[in-house]
């Protein structure tokens, strides 16, 4: 979808409807599914919510790779509960998209065909069990920074889904940090695993907030519509400020020689992000893009007969009753 398509004004719209919509947004009240809304608003929301839902579902895989191999039964249970939550969160979000007239099966097709994106962070591999902890700490931490403001999104079903997601995710970040604390108190190999995982995930986590504000074409409109509440750079800075002291407490080094407290602002300055890498990963050249999508495709195609069987059964039994 091009930016111009989003920005083009709706034709033949009763000006009263547009005024009512604008007034609702201006008053910080919620837009609900059956309200009139500009077509661009609807499409932007569907795209953003679907991308968010896809990220939850694809996000099950990097950690899911460790479900069968978790080194203790407690960690296995925690990780299973977490990965299961991600499936649930994907469902809440697809639900919100469906209130806008989208269809979950169609959105899944778009994901698998590459017509819709998901967060590029999930295209990196999880090489050791420390990655499970670092994903909880950094990736979920970044996600929480992004998501908490969305609980006030102008679109009611999205905001309500995010309230639920954020409440459930509070344990995700904590379990990750707790695992890392435990590993840092463990053997030298465990400590090395943690540092190595931090080295690999730090920069991709910063990229999760999206391109810099100077290069974020749709941001201004999304902010005006109340779909987005803070700029990418603002949220990224908030995340860095929050995370640096946690890294110190943990005893790991963040892989950025330029990272330093700016005494005049009380905030941390950090080094330049390699945006070319982000573009490569988003455009499909990440280490695991093909694998992630192949797994979703297999889940859909190999089990289509199950979905069909349940429908056939329901039809037979409706007809009989």
């Amino acid at each position: 979808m091009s930016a111009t398509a989003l920005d083009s004004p709706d034709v033949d719209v009763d000006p009263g409807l547009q005024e009512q919509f604008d007034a609702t947004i201006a008053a910080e009240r919620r837009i609900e599914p059956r309200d009139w809304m500009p077509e661009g608003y609807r499409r932007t929301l569907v795209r953003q919510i679907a991308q968010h839902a896809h990220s939850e579902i694809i996000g099950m895989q990097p950690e899911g790779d460790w479900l069968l191999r978790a080194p203790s039964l407690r960690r296995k249970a925690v990780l299973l509960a977490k990965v299961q939550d991600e499936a649930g969160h994907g469902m809440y979000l697809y639900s919100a998209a469906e209130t806008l007239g989208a269809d979950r099966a169609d959105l899944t097709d778009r994901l698998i065909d590459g017509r819709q994106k998901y967060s590029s962070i999930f295209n990196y591999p999880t090489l050791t069990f420390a990655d499970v902890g670092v994903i909880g700490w950094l990736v979920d931490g970044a996600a929480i920074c992004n998501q908490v403001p969305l609980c006030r999104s102008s679109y009611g079903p999205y905001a309500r889904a995010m309230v639920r997601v954020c409440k459930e995710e509070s344990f995700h970040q904590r379990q990750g940090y707790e695992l890392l604390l435990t590993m840092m108190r463990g053997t030298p190999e465990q400590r090395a695993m943690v540092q190595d995982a931090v080295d690999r995930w730090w920069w991709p986590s910063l990229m999760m907030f999206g391109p810099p504000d100077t290069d974020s074409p749709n941001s201004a409109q999304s902010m005006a519509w109340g779909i987005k509440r803070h700029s990418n750079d603002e949220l990224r800075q908030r995340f860095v400020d929050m995370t640096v002291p946690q890294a110190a407490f943990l005893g790991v080094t963040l892989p950025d020689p330029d990272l330093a407290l700016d005494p005049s602002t009380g905030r941390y300055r950090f080094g330049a992000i390699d945006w070319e890498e982000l573009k490569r990963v988003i455009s499909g050249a990440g280490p695991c893009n093909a694998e992630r999508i192949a797994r979703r495709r297999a889940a859909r195609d190999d089990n289509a007969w199950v979905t069909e069987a349940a429908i056939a059964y329901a039809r037979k039994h409706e007809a009989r009753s």
Partner: protein
Amino acid sequence: MSARAGWPLYEVFVRGKRGLNHVHVGSLHAPDDEMAVHAARDVYTRRNEGVSIWVVRADAITASSPDEKDPMFAPSGDKVYRHPTFYEIPADVPHI
């Protein structure tokens, strides 16, 4: 729309605890009513949030349409006496 025939959409309502109304919590896809209740239990009460679940096919819900919003809801908009805050009660009256 997808070429595949998907499961229909169900809306899910959960009674959080005794004494509360069922509240809409979201939706899911299921092939039939029974499976919808199962899926609702699995998805929406993972943390013991509910004591009772209702599911209803989304296409079975009749809703007031936005165009009707004003005529349907405006009449009660001025009946402030239906709302408890309409009544001024001295602050020292207990349990009201």
